[in-house]
């Protein structure tokens, strides 16, 4: 398969291997025309498809089969070096066959669109994929920084807490930044936003191995809606490849039948989907097709019950040199053989502490692997139990005839069995060459075995899943098929029954497979103290047994401390291959009983999740919702500079009027005072309150009595919070006896709506006189948000009335008095004309349906009025001392804002009680004043603090708003200043240290322009 491919500049590992006399490449895959097939009745290469593809790894092109993972294809091509470890840059190969891979992490793609830290073991190849190993320079074989490990003992745990101090950290920082970390950060985002799906189901089964499928079947048969999440591309777990018989048929056949039954029952099977977290009662899972982030889907699943069947993880054993490439977990090697048709290279040694070693040895040998030795730490362990499949029928005979016969049989197959022996060390430079083995009780009687692959298995540990799920299967400790099926089935039935789905008539399946392994715990082989620094626990972060000793010596003995001090288990696989081993060895080093070993706490996400996935589709323009007015498109098309203000996009100014906001706003404001202008005020909140009790209700809401308002008139009204401070201000229009329209500040629309609804729901309303029949309860009242059903156009300035009169000939506008409104018709729609404004000019506000807004706006433009933006609106209102949320900042009372007359009316509204507090009458309460620069044209900005002297450090208040007034040709502003310093004419200082210094200002009336309000009345 590889021979047809011509390698590029550098020789492939295959040529070098051939030169060095090692096993030729082609022999790692059985040389049948299609590598998928059957050898001695056993299926292998089940994930492969027929087509081939090529990909690149570190600049060299390799061939692969469709369905191959990067690890499988590269192993088949004879590659043994996949990367280097984080701390000491030691050469690393492939250790596992799943996402728990600590060593073989690759970078996919070309700069800057790279995706780093992708496990080669889960990355399914596409044609033309470009892969690179990580953490090495200049190349994988010759890494400059690995020379640092020559001084090996320098790099014990926590060395960076004790080094790099002299002369200064800054000398080392650039070097360390370059060397540290894992993988290259992408320069641009290669990932597209994920799809998001919310779904709900009755039973969520995590994991579709034998236990998961069985439990899902049980629940689905009982009638529950079932969703199964499986992190592999296909369902089945061990059923895909282990020798098993379920319900009388081979395991994989039973699996196919069960999956079909599940689909028929309506279950949803999500493959490539890993459950990563749970948030309350929502489980978050994400799909990474082909092991690559991007093009993925994030699921938010609400499940009635969650069953965790996530299986168990094989554990390694620590020995000297256990990090060499060529050392792999036994189960991983079996998976590579069964799923991808790749057999382990060269002479193979197996090392472990349970009897499944022997079954695995025979299975691999059946595939053509050259197994030379099995090192079993158990002294009197059982060799083989009777197995159901023909491939190891030999073993049945051997087992029946006794251990010596079995050993002789294995020896006849070329497999030497060393029971009661342990593996002390693995030797090699960039890959394993030989191992040193000795009897457990006679460590000096060591001998070596030459090998190129070492398959290790130290038993299994249940994989951690969601904390609140019920656990079944291998994750619950049942590692053999025979014993897990019935409990798994029961778990499924129980989950369904808890949700009310009755038990069905079916029975649990019965299966047999690899029998229960009897594991005699064995964590590490003995080693001299000096050699403990080469017994690795965490392969990614180079944490060794010596490091644990250092941590204990430094006083960190709790696993959580040790984890953080030594960096054990903090890598991409979060300790799946190292936590339990480390915890056990730590307990041993501390002299504790093995049962006292504790592992560190796992936190979500349970699998790596990119920020891209977490962000979902809320990126870019979708990051934050924005609201558009009905005239939005016109503003955008005519040079309006739209800025977000709260949720709304509003035009600050129009480009035709000036090159920046400051100059344009001045031009626009001046034009309004000179002739006139129109502004889009549709962002005002509008709430309609309708009903017999509407007036009485609003009396409780506003500072002044709403019931006194006459039909057809509007009034400026203020609302207080319960604590007496001002909540908002706006206009109240009485449309009818029982119908009111209240406007709010643009930013307070929803808050005021909730405030009104809350008061309606929870206040006793004793003062309301209800006109409803006596048997009714509650209030004859409705509150409805109508913000979006009214567009509002402000028409302001000396020419506003004549212009508008031209458009609305039937309305007698000169008889419309200030704060009165009238409903009329324009172009077939209702328009409400209110004589009021926020500019101090003679002005009208036109309330019209959104569909009419553009038409009306256009008509006003054609009649000669020009638009002005929000900044100009601000200039006009500051000149007149009108308030916005800059002054109504949530910290002032109506008294502070000069509304004594309104308070004095004594209306019993929300907040009146607490407004009466003595503290609100103290002399240092803020008071609203106007400010002008003492020397004419000096500027001062909103936010400047008010002080008594130029360098004064005690703040008396601050400037709330400031604008350059074209009318007065100077800067004017409004401020909240301590009342005892606010007599007119007082000179104060506006201090603005961050933006440019201090300005002397004079206290003046907040109404800077036209204090008698003549312009508003249409008088010159």
């Amino acid at each position, binding site marked *: 398969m590889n021979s047809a491919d011509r390698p590029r500049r550098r020789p492939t590992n295959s040529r070098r291997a051939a030169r060095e006399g090692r096993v030729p490449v082609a022999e790692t895959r059985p040389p049948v025309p299609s590598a998928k097939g059957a050898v001695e009745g056993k299926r292998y290469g089940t994930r492969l498809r027929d087509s081939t593809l090529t990909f690149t790894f570190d600049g060299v092109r390799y061939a692969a089969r469709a369905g191959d993972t990067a690890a499988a294809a590269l192993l088949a091509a004879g590659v043994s070096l996949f990367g280097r470890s984080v701390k000491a840059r030691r050469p690393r190969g492939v250790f596992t066959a799943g996402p728990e891979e600590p060593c073989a992490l690759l970078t996919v793609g070309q700069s800057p669109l790279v995706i780093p830290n992708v496990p080669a073991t889960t990355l399914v190849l596409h044609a033309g994929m470009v892969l690179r190993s990580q953490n090495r320079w200049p190349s994988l074989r010759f890494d400059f920084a690995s020379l640092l490990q020559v001084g090996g003992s320098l790099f014990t745990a926590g060395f960076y807490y004790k080094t790099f101090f002299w002369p200064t950290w800054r000398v080392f920082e650039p070097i360390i930044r370059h060397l540290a970390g894992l993988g290259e950060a992408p320069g641009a985002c290669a990932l*597209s*936003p*994920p*799809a*998001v*799906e*919310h*779904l*709900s189901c009755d039973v969520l089964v995590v994991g579709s191995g034998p236990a998961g499928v069985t439990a899902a079947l049980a629940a689905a048969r009982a009638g529950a809606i079932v969703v199964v999440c499986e992190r592999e591309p296909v369902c089945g777990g061990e059923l895909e490849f282990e020798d098993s018989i379920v319900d009388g048929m081979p395991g994989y056949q039973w699996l196919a039948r069960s999956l079909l039954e599940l689909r028929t029952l309506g279950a949803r099977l999500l493959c490539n989907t890993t459950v990563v977290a749970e948030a309350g009662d929502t489980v978050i899972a994400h799909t990474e097709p082909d092991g690559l982030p991007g*093009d*993925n*889907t994030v699921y*938010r699943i*609400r499940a009635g019950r969650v069953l965790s069947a996530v299986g168990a993880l094989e554990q390694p054993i620590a020995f000297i040199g256990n990090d060499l490439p060529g050392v792999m977990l036994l189960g991983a090697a079996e998976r590579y053989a069964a799923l991808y048709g790749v057999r382990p290279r060269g002479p193979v040694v197996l090392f472990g502490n349970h009897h499944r070693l022997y079954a695995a040895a025979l299975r691999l040998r059946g595939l053509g692997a050259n197994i030379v030795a099995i090192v079993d730490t158990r002294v009197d362990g059982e060799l083989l139990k009777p197995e159901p499949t023909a491939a190891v029928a030999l073993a049945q005979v051997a087992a029946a005839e006794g251990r010596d016969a079995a050993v002789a049989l294995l020896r006849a197959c070329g497999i030497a069995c060393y029971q009661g022996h342990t593996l002390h060390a693995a030797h090699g430079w960039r890959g394993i060459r030989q191992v040193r083995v000795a009897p457990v009780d006679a460590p000096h009687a060591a001998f070596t075995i030459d090998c190129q692959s070492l398959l290790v298995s130290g038993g299994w540990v249940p994989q951690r899943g969601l904390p609140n799920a019920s656990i079944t299967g291998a994750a619950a400790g049942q590692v053999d098929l025979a014993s897990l099926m019935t409990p798994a089935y029961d778990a499924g039935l129980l989950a369904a029954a808890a949700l009310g789905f009755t038990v069905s008539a079916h029975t649990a399946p019965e299966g047999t497979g690899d029998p229960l392994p009897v594991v005699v715990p064995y964590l590490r082989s003995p080693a001299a103290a000096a050699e403990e620094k080469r017994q690795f626990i965490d392969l990614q972060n180079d944490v060794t047994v010596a490091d644990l000793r250092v941590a204990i010596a430094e006083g960190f003995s709790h696993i959580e401390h040790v984890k953080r001090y030594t960096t054990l288990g903090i890598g991409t696989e979060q300790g799946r291959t190292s936590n339990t081993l480390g915890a056990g060895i730590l307990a041993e080093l501390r002299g504790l009983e093995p049962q006292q070993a504790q592992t560190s706490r796992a936190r979500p996400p349970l699998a790596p999740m990119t920020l891209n996935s977490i962000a979902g*589709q809320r990126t870019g*323009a*979708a990051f934050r*919702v*924005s*609201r*558009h*007015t*009905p005239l*939005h498109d016109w503003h955008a098309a005519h040079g309006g500079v739209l800025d977000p203000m709260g949720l*709304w996009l509003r035009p600050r100014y129009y480009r035709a009027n000036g090159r920046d906001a400051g100059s344009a706003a001045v031009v626009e404001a001046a034009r309004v005072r000179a002739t006139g202008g129109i502004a889009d005020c549709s962002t005002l909140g509008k709430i*309609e309150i*309708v*009903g*017999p009790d509407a007036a009485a209700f609003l009396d409780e809401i506003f500072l002044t009595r709403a019931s006194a308002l006459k039909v057809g008139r509007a009034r400026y009204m203020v609302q207080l919070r319960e604590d007496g401070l001002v909540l908002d201000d706006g206009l109240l229009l009485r449309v009818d006896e*029982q*119908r009111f329209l209240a406007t709010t500040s643009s930013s307070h629309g929803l808050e005021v709506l909730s405030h009104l609804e809350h008061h309606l729901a929870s206040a006793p309303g004793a003062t309301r006189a209800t*006109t*409803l029949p006596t*048997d*009714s*309860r*509650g*209030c*004859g*009242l*409705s509150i*409805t948000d*109508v*913000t*979006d*059903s*009214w*567009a509002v156009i402000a028409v302001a300035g000396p020419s506003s009335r004549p212009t508008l009169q031209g458009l609305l000939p039937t309305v007698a506008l000169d008889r419309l008095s200030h704060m009165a409104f009238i409903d009329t018709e324009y172009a077939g729609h209702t328009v409400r004309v209110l004589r009021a404004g926020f500019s101090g000019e003679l002005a009208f506000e036109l309330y019209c*349906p*959104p*569909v009419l807004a553009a038409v009306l706006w256009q008509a006003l433009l054609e009649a000669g009025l020009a638009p002005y933006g929000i900044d100009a609106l601000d200039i006009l209102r500051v000149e007149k001392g009108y308030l916005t949320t800059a002054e109504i900042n949530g910290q002032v009372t109506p008294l502070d804002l000069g509304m004594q007359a309104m308070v004095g009316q004594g209306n019993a509204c929300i907040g009146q009680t607490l407004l009466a507090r003595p503290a609100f009458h103290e002399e240092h309460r803020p008071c609203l004043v106007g400010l002008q620069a003492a020397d004419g044209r000096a500027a001062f900005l909103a936010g400047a603090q008010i002080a008594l002297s130029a360098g004064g450090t005690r703040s008396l208040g601050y400037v709330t708003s400031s604008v350059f007034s074209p009318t007065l040709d100077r800067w004017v502003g409004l401020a909240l200043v301590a009342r005892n310093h606010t007599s007119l004419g007082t000179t104060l200082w506006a201090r603005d240290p961050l933006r440019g210094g201090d300005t002397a200002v004079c206290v003046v009336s907040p109404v800077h322009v036209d204090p008698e309000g003549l312009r508003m009345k249409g008088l010159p």
Partner: protein
Amino acid sequence: MRSVASPLVEFVLFPGQPVPEGWPALPGSVVRDTAGQAVLLHVGPLRWFAPAAVPGLSAAFQGLERAGTGAALRVDGKYEVCDFSGAVGARILASTLDLAGILRSRDCAAVTLFDCPALLLRESGGYRVWVQTSYAAHFKAAVERAAAICAKIRG
């Protein structure tokens, strides 16, 4: 996405008043005319939404108002409407809310879709959504984005 031409009414019943004859009384229930078009949607406690001009309906509202039973609010222009059809439509909506879960025991609901306040109605063959007008541009962009992503990932 399109503007709604017909008059839109939100009708609020005053507490203690009986639900008028023939109105959808259960939360989330809907009353349709003979053509299958929704006439009244019970979208909130004591609140009904009438999305279409149906003969006699406005007269009915006026009668109820005069009798002091409730208040009819004309909210023309408050919503824009968008239809989602088929499996693709359902998939797009599922990217912002648990469609099946929310409509499990009802035909209509007041919801938040892609951060926009909206009313959702189950129709034959799909769903109809009324989104508040000021949010419509954001909603449309979010829907198009979700549709593009769904199409890409499925394919």
